[in-house]
Each structure stands twice: as structure tokens, then as C-alpha cells.
């Protein structure tokens, strides 16, 4: 195991269990150990072997951690974020799958994800609780400003076309701001976190595509037929992508909150099933007591989306597991 591998393995073992400043402190000490060992002519592998496996090092460090109030406090720390994560997973999947939710829901989804991230310590791990909250407030302000701007164009100017342009511009703005966040995350080596702004970007594009579709639909011009179809398909696929990203992020949160992989998938599929049933009931003919094949098929689109997102997140999960197992195997 090289120095780089050791440090990154230790980081991932300590992540979410200690504050970022503590982790940075430990890792800088470990770096110093490697440098000191290297100056004595030892190889990185030798030093890593003497240090003991990252797993046992992390366990020792957590056990010896000052002020750790034992397991009871640790469990308590996880209960609230876990409950929030489950509720959030359920709500997000419902909103995403229905697609019939009022438009303002789309404005709420990204700040909502930010809130969950803050609550579950994603930001605490990344840059400290305070800046996490600040980032969240910033994200809410961006979306609030965008909503006000849109309402202004619809109700004050009273032009749907203007509203569509505003929506597209707003989406562009969201894309740029979220792109900056993504770049920051990527630069900090938090590649997984990039999925978060990516989901917001996809959500924004999806929103813009929806407006383009709506706008072209209301115009009588036949040329708009192509735009209409293109926009419709764009919307559909982006929508699937967004569910995938959201599902994957939520699964990470659940996993980091101390849930096992199978229980997370159980929650995920239960939510999907509920959505599917609700969808089927919505399409049901009031005169037939049971959902007919025709109505079941109508819900197909949603179950396909759900299945694809579940499969993608499952593949991500398996890949992540394989990678981490291979890393452990090297110790």
C-alpha cells in the first residue's frame, strides 16, 4: 500500500465519524510519518505496514477520540438524519415519479437536497457545518430569486412567452451556479459530491425543456413540431437521469447514516411500489373495480424509470463496493 492509498483509505474510514478539521489534522500527521520514514530510507509499503491497516487505525482513532460519549451518543446522532433521509427519499421519488406535482415543487427539490446534505453532515465533512448552512441559504436564495422573477413575468407582464424565456434564462443561471459548485467539489477531490449539483443542473435543464415544449405546443406553427418532439424526449430522458442521480445520492446518504445496503434497497423499492400503485389508481376508471391491463400499462413509464434508476444506482453501489474491497485487500 502506497502513501496515497493509505491516506485515502484512512480518510474514507474516518469520514462522517469525525469533524473535517480532526480528519485533516490526522492525515497531515500521517503524511509527516510517511515523510519522516522516507527520510530514513524506508519504502512507503514498509511504513504503511508498520502503521497497521487503515481499518484498525481508524478504529483506534475513533475509540481513543476525546469526548466521544460512547455508542449511545453515536446512535442518537444518526437517528435524525436517517429519518430525514428516508422521508426525503420517499418524497423525492414520489415527486419525481408523479411528474404531475405543481411546478413550484421543482424549485423546492434542489434546496431540499441541499438541506438533507447539510442535515446528514455532507457539508460538515466537506467544509464544516457553518459554511454548509451558508451554502444552503445561498442555494435557497438563488431559487427564491428565480421563482420571484418567474412570477413577475407571468403575473405582472402577463406574457407566457416571456415566462418561458425567463424560465430558460433562470435554468441557465442555475446551471452556471451549480456548475461552479460542481467544479469546487471536483477540485476538492469529492467526485461523488459532484452528482449533487449535477442533479440540480439536470433538474434545471429538465425545467427549461418542459417550458420549451409548452411554448412550442401553444404556437400553431408546424415547424414547431420538431422542437416539440425533441423537447419532449429531452425532458423524458433528463427526467430519468435526474431520478438516477437523486436515487444514487440518497443511497449514499442512507449508507453513510449507518444503513446496510439491502435495507436501503428495500426502502427504495417500497417507495417505488407505492408510487406505482398510486399511479395506477389515478388512471383507474371509476366504473371498473380493478385496474385493467390498459391502466397498468399506463403506469409502466414510471416503473421503467424507477427500475432504470434502481439498476443504475445498484450498479454504482456494486462498483463502489468492489473498488473499496480491492483497496482493503491490498492492506
Amino acid at each position: 500500500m502506497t502513501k496515497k492509498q493509505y491516506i485515502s483509505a484512512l480518510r474514507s474510514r474516518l469520514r462522517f465519524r469525525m469533524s473535517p478539521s480532526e480528519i485533516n489534522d490526522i492525515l497531515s500527521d500521517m503524511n509527516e510519518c510517511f515523510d519522516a520514514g522516507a527520510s530514513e530510507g524506508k519504502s512507503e509499503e514498509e511504513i504503511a505496514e508498520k502503521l497497521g491497516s487503515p481499518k484498525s487505525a481508524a478504529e483506534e482513532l475513533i475509540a481513543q477520540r476525546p469526548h466521544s460519549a460512547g455508542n449511545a451518543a453515536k446512535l442518537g446522532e444518526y437517528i435524525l438524519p436517517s429519518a430525514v433521509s428516508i422521508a426525503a427519499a420517499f418524497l423525492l421519488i414520489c415527486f419525481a415519479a408523479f411528474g404531475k406535482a405543481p411546478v413550484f415543487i421543482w424549485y423546492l427539490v434542489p434546496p431540499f437536497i441541499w438541506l438533507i446534505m447539510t442535515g446528514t453532515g455532507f457539508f460538515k465533512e466537506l467544509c464544516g457545518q457553518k459554511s454548509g448552512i451558508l451554502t444552503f441559504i445561498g442555494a435557497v436564495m438563488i431559487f427564491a430569486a428565480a421563482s420571484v422573477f418567474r412570477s413577475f413575468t407571468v403575473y405582472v407582464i402577463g406574457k407566457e412567452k416571456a415566462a418561458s424565456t425567463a424560465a430558460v434564462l433562470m435554468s441557465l443561471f442555475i446551471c452556471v451556479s451549480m456548475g461552479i459548485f460542481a467544479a469546487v467539489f471536483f477540485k476538492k477531490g469529492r467526485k461523488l459530491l459532484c452528482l449533487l449539483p449535477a442533479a440540480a443542473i439536470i433538474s434545471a435543464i429538465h425545467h427549461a425543456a418542459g417550458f420549451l415544449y409548452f411554448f412550442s405546443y401553444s404556437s400553431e406553427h408546424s415547424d414547431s413540431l420538431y422542437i416539440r418532439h425533441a423537447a419532449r424526449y429531452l425532458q423524458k430522458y433528463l427526467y430519468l437521469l435526474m431520478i438516477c442521480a437523486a436515487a444514487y445520492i440518497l443511497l449514499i446518504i442512507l449508507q453513510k447514516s449507518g444503513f446496510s445496503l439491502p435495507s436501503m434497497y428495500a426502502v427504495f423499492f417500497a417507495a417505488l411500489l407505492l408510487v406505482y400503485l398510486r399511479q395506477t389508481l389515478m388512471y383507474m376508471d371509476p366504473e371498473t373495480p380493478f385496474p385493467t391491463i390498459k391502466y397498468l400499462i399506463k403506469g409502466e413509464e414510471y416503473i421503467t424509470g424507477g427500475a432504470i434508476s434502481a439498476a443504475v444506482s445498484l450498479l454504482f453501489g456494486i462498483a463502489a463496493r468492489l473498488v473499496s474491497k480491492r483497496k482493503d485487500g491490498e492492506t
Partner: protein
Amino acid sequence: MDKGQMKKGVLEMCILSVVSENDLYGYEIMKKVTAAFPDISESTVYAVLRRLNADGCTDSYTGEISGGPKRKYYRITEKGRLVLENMLIEWRGLLNSIEMLGISQT
């Protein structure tokens, strides 16, 4: 009681004793202690050292040997000296008790 736990208590004493002689940087302390306890890993020593530092038994400062790289040095504090003294008294008492029971030390 597993043997690891017994050793960990002794480990605190040993680390404090090593640091009480002169200021050392982290890697030196880890190397010194693991040389005496070969079945204890360096990261265990580091974890205990970290806790001692957080408890105020030692404190750290950044120093450099002439021309060498900057390193984090640890030195014992007044509190650390008291803790070490108490530990040594306890340890000697323990050795006496063991001897009284006729358990040979060799």
C-alpha cells in the same frame, strides 16, 4: 479482560515517559514505543498520543531541525508530569502487590 486493554493503559504511561525525557516528533515516539512493544501497531501509539495531547497531558509545536523539514513535536505539560507521576506510583504499587503474591517476574 483482553491483553490489548491492559497494554493500552501501560501504553499511556510509556508514551508520557518517553516524551518526558525530551521533546520528540510523532514518528519518533511511535517508533520508540513500538520497538518495545512489537505487537502494537504505530497507529495505535499515534491514537493514544493524540488523546493524551487532547487531554492536555502533552502539547505540540511545529519545529525544525537545522535545514530539515518542519515537524510536529510533542512535549510533556505540567499536567502530563503529574499524570505520569501518579501512573508510575500506581505501577510500582502493582508490581509490589504482584511480588507479594509470589508471582515471579522472570
